């Protein structure tokens, strides 16, 4: 496939593949992957047989936990997260919507106490019809996940 020629193979670390095109940079930013100091390869708008276009992120020497992978499910539910050791896939995370999410997103309510106090943000996640709703533990306001995901 074309992207295997354009994005170098990974010896050890995590490959986040099948990210909907346009979301790769968001994921990098939200999960603070660049702050790991490790080498990161990012592919944007790569062609994909199933998705048309996709983004991909390869992070060297960092193994994403099950919890972090599930947090990804919020905005890239069809992404695949593979842990690599010595060029081999040693674990594939199956993404499931987490019940709670801590410390990734800021609460969109500007009058929420979580912005000014020594606590991490905390949301309860609820799948509702076709939308995913997130309720802040502190101010109890309920937001669509798309609103929470853009605020930083």
């Amino acid at each position, binding site marked *: 496939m074309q992207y295997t020629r354009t994005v170098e193979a990974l010896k050890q670390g995590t490959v986040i593949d099948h990210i909907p095109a346009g979301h790769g940079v968001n994921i990098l930013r939200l999960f603070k992957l660049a702050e790991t100091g490790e080498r990161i390869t990012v592919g944007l708008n790569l062609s994909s047989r199933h998705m048309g276009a996709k983004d991909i992120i390869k992070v060297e020497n960092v193994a994403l936990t099950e919890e972090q992978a599930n947090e990804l499910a919020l905005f890239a539910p069809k992404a695949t997260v593979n842990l690599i050791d010595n060029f081999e896939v040693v674990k594939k995370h199956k993404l499931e919507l987490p019940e709670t999410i801590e410390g990734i997103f800021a609460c969109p*309510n500007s*009058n*929420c*106490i*979580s912005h*000014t*106090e*020594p*606590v991490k943000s905390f949301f309860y996640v609820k799948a*509702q019809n076709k939308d995913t709703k997130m309720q*802040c*533990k*502190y*101010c*109890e*306001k*309920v937001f669509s996940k798309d609103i929470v995901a853009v605020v930083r």
Partner: protein
Amino acid sequence: MANPLYRKHIISIPDFSREELELVVETAGKLKRTPRNDLLQGKLVGSCFFEPSTRTRLSFETAVQRLGGDIIGFADGGNTSAKKGETLADSIKIISSYADAVVMRHPKEGAARLASEFSSVPVINGGDGSNQHPTQTLLDLFTIRETQGTLENLTIAFVGDLKYGRTVHSLTQALSLFGARFYFVAPEQLAMPDYICEELDEKGIEYTIVDSLDDVIPLIDILYMTRVQRERFDETEFKKIQGQFVLRADMLKSARTNMKVMHPLPRVDEITVDVDATPHAYYFEQAKNGVYARQALLSLVLNETV
């Protein structure tokens, strides 16, 4: 066995089970019939009002003192170390080391939940921004039970500002545990928020959105009025809706004999003064009930058995 609210934080109505709500309501009734002056003897309650309040603060402080307890605290956050930049987390850690319980009001949403994470004693939410005001809901439930003899299967109309009125949201959530039917009467701009309607849909609770206050009066047990704030509208819009959400005595002719009018107060002009003299008016008794509901809650939180 200790009562289920003993040493619990009281933050938000959705945290309560139906049984816990009933326990507070029953205890409030007992304390109204047979006053006690010993239930908080030797207890010190911190009353921390980071935002000014009249009824809530005074009724909490009355409740504590009538039960034989003592109060420390402040009525305005402007005079506290919060003004110097201290976090709420630090303030509460310290205050909770002085008192047996902390009653607090704060202008930011989520303040009480956050305080409960840093407090070594129970925190009772007296209002956190536009979010929750659970003791208002408890006094409303107590008042409804007192006037109707039950909380089960009642029909309630909420009128006025249903969008921003936190008392309306919490009371709807609480009454939905008791099989209530609702009528919502509000200007379009102040309609009940979607998330409350969705919760009711999920629980299969019946509600109807209606335009006219007159139409619902013969159908209901409780008429819960709220204030429509002029500043939420431009002048022309306000004039258009102004008369529609005002209750006058002559409109009550078709009401059931058991029907009571409630209002969280302060009222401005949404209930005309001629309603006060009708047997349906109950808002002043409702405000008085705030003391009994808060007495009940404080007694349950600070005593294993009441």
